C-alpha cells in the first residue's frame, strides 16, 4: 500500500522537478516523448509483467489511437480530446475481437496473432491513401487545450504544455496499473502467470482475465499513440510498425517487466539513449544492441527488480 504511494510520489516529484535542470527547451520535448513511451510500456507491464502474455503488435493499437486523432476531427468533426476516447474504444473492441479466440489457447499464440494484427494495421495505414494519405503521414489537428489554458491565464510554451500533459497522463496510467496490481483482478492475473493450472482450480476463468489484461494494455497503447500524434501534430504509419511494437517490449524488458517503475525507467533510457548516441552516428544501433545484451546477461530480471534485489540484499 505504502509502496504504491511512494512510487507515485517519486514519479510525480521527478516529473515536476526535472525541468529545473533542463539546459534548453528542447528537453521538454524529450521528456514528453519519454512519458508517452512509458505510458505505452506500462500497458505492456500489465499484459506481460502481471499476466505473462506476450504481444508483438501493440504498436497497431498506438496506430489506431494516433490516426483516430488525425481522422475523426476532420471527417466527423469530433473534438480531438474525444478522438482520443474514440481511438481507445476502437482499440479495446479490436483487442477483444483478436484476443477472445486466441486467449482460449495456452502458449504463445497471442504473440503470433498480435504480430499479424500489428502488421495488418500498418498495411492499412500505408495503403489506404484516400483515407490516411499513405506512408508520408498525415496532419493532426491541434488539441486546443493549450489555447484554453492561455485564456484562463496559464500561458505555457508548446514544450512545457506537452511535458505537463503527458506527465499527468503517465501518472494516471501508473496509478491505475499500481491499483490493479494489488486488486483482486491483479492478483488473478499474477496467479495465472505463476500457474495456469492452479489458477483454474481456484476458480479463475483464465481466458477471461487474460482478455481483460490484453484489452486494458491495448487502451494504454492507444492513448499513448493519440498523445504522440497530438503532440507532433503529425503522424506516419511508422507508429504502428513492427519496430515500434518491438521497441515497447524491449523497454519493458529492459526496465523489468513486472514493475511499473521499471516501465518508466526502461522507456526513459531507450528514449534518451538514441539522443545521446547521435554523437556516435553510425554506431548508435550497435551500442543500443550491446546495452540490451549486457542487461539481459547480467540483470536478466531487468534493471529495476535486479537493482532493488541488490539493495535489499539476499534476505528476500
Amino acid at each position: 500500500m505504502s509502496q504504491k504511494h511512494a512510487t507515485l510520489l517519486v514519479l510525480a516529484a521527478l516529473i515536476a522537478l526535472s525541468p529545473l535542470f533542463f539546459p534548453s527547451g528542447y528537453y521538454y520535448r524529450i521528456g514528453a516523448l519519454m512519458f508517452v513511451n512509458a505510458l505505452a510500456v506500462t500497458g505492456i507491464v500489465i499484459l506481460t509483467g502481471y499476466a505473462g502474455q506476450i504481444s508483438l503488435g501493440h504498436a497497431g493499437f498506438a496506430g489506431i489511437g494516433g490516426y483516430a486523432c488525425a481522422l475523426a476531427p476532420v471527417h466527423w468533426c469530433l473534438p480531438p480530446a474525444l478522438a482520443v476516447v474514440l481511438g481507445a474504444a476502437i482499440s479495446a473492441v479490436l483487442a477483444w475481437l483478436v484476443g477472445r479466440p486466441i486467449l482460449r489457447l495456452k502458449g504463445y499464440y497471442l504473440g503470433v496473432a498480435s504480430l499479424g494484427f500489428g502488421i495488418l494495421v500498418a498495411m492499412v495505414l500505408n495503403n489506404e491513401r484516400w483515407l490516411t494519405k499513405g506512408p508520408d503521414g498525415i496532419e493532426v489537428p491541434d488539441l486546443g487545450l493549450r489555447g484554453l489554458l492561455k485564456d484562463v491565464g496559464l500561458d505555457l510554451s508548446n514544450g512545457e504544455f506537452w511535458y505537463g500533459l503527458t506527465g499527468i497522463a503517465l501518472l494516471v496510467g501508473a496509478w491505475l496499473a499500481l491499483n490493479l496490481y494489488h486488486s483482486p483482478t491483479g492478483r488473478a492475473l499474477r496467479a495465472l502467470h505463476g500457474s495456469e493450472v492452479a489458477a483454474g482450480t481456484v476458480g479463475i476463468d483464465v481466458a477471461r482475465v487474460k482478455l481483460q489484461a490484453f484489452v486494458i494494455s491495448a487502451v494504454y497503447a492507444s492513448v499513448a499513440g493519440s498523445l504522440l500524434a497530438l503532440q507532433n501534430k503529425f503522424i506516419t504509419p511508422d507508429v504502428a510498425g513492427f519496430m515500434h511494437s518491438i521497441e515497447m517490449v524491449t523497454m519493458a524488458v529492459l526496465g523489468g517487466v513486472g514493475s511499473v517503475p521499471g516501465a518508466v525507467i526502461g522507456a526513459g533510457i531507450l528514449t534518451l539513449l538514441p539522443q545521446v548516441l547521435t554523437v556516435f552516428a553510425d554506431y548508435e544501433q550497435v551500442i543500443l544492441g550491446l546495452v540490451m545484451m549486457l542487461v539481459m546477461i547480467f540483470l536478466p530480471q531487468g534493471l529495476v527488480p535486479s537493482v532493488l534485489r541488490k539493495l535489499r540484499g539476499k534476505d528476500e
Partner: protein
Amino acid sequence: MSLLEIQGLGISFGGLKAVQDVSFKVEPGEIVSVIGPNGAGKTTLFNMISGVYQPGAGRVVLDGQDVTGMEPFRLAARGMSRTFQNLQIFQNMTVLENAASGFHLRERGPVLADLLNLPGARRRARAAEAGARALLARVGLERAADRQAGNLSYGSLKRLEIARALALQPKVLLLDEPAAGCNAVETEEIDRLIAEVAASGTAILLVEHDMKMVMRISNHIVVLDHGEKIAEGAPLEVSRNPAVIAAYLGTEEATHADG
C-alpha cells in the same frame, strides 16, 4: 444421493485403456482414498474427475448435477477444488497472496473498480487477505505470510496448497499425494489437517502412496490396478483382500518383466 458420484468413468490414450469403468461414491465429511500400484491410473482418474481430462466414458455427478468434463474453474465454482502431486504454487507471489487467491470467486469484482481502487475493490481485497491470514494460521504458516512462496520448504508449500484450496470452502477436496516428499513430521501435520477438514464436513478424495497414512485416516478405500477398480471397502477389509495383495506383489514381477 451422494455428494460425489463417479459412474463408470473411463478414458483411453491411443487405444490404451488407462482407466476403465470406475465407479464409487463420496459422502460429506468422508475421507475416500484411491490407491493402487504405480501406473494404475490414479492420477488419470483424478484428472478426469477434476476436469483436466475429458473422460471417454462415464459421468461425474457433483451434488446431483452432471459435471463430467467441466473445466476446472467452473468446478471450483460448484464446490470442487484440488491440489497437485507436483505442487502448483504461484511462486511469483507471497504466501499471503497465494492463500488469498483462493478467495478469487468471492473477491472478484468489476475490473474498472479494481483499476480505480474504488472502496468496493479495497474492501474485497481486504476481506480476501483477512480470510487468507486465518487460513494460514490454520495450517501453521501465519509467520511466513509475507515471504515469497518460492522460498518455502517443500512441506510448507504442500500445506500452503491445501490452505489455498480450503479458501474456496469446497464441498469436495481432491488431494493428489499430499504427503509425497514430506518427512515424517510433515506427513503427520498434513495428516492432522486432513482429518480436521473432513471433520468440518468437507468430503476428501485422496490419492496417496503412504500406505500407513491411507490406512490411518481413510473411511473408505478404492483400489485400482491396470485402470480398473479391483476392490473397495473399509481399510481393514481392503488390506486383507487377496486381489489387492496380488496386485501389489504382482507389480514387482511385472516391472521386472518390462524392464
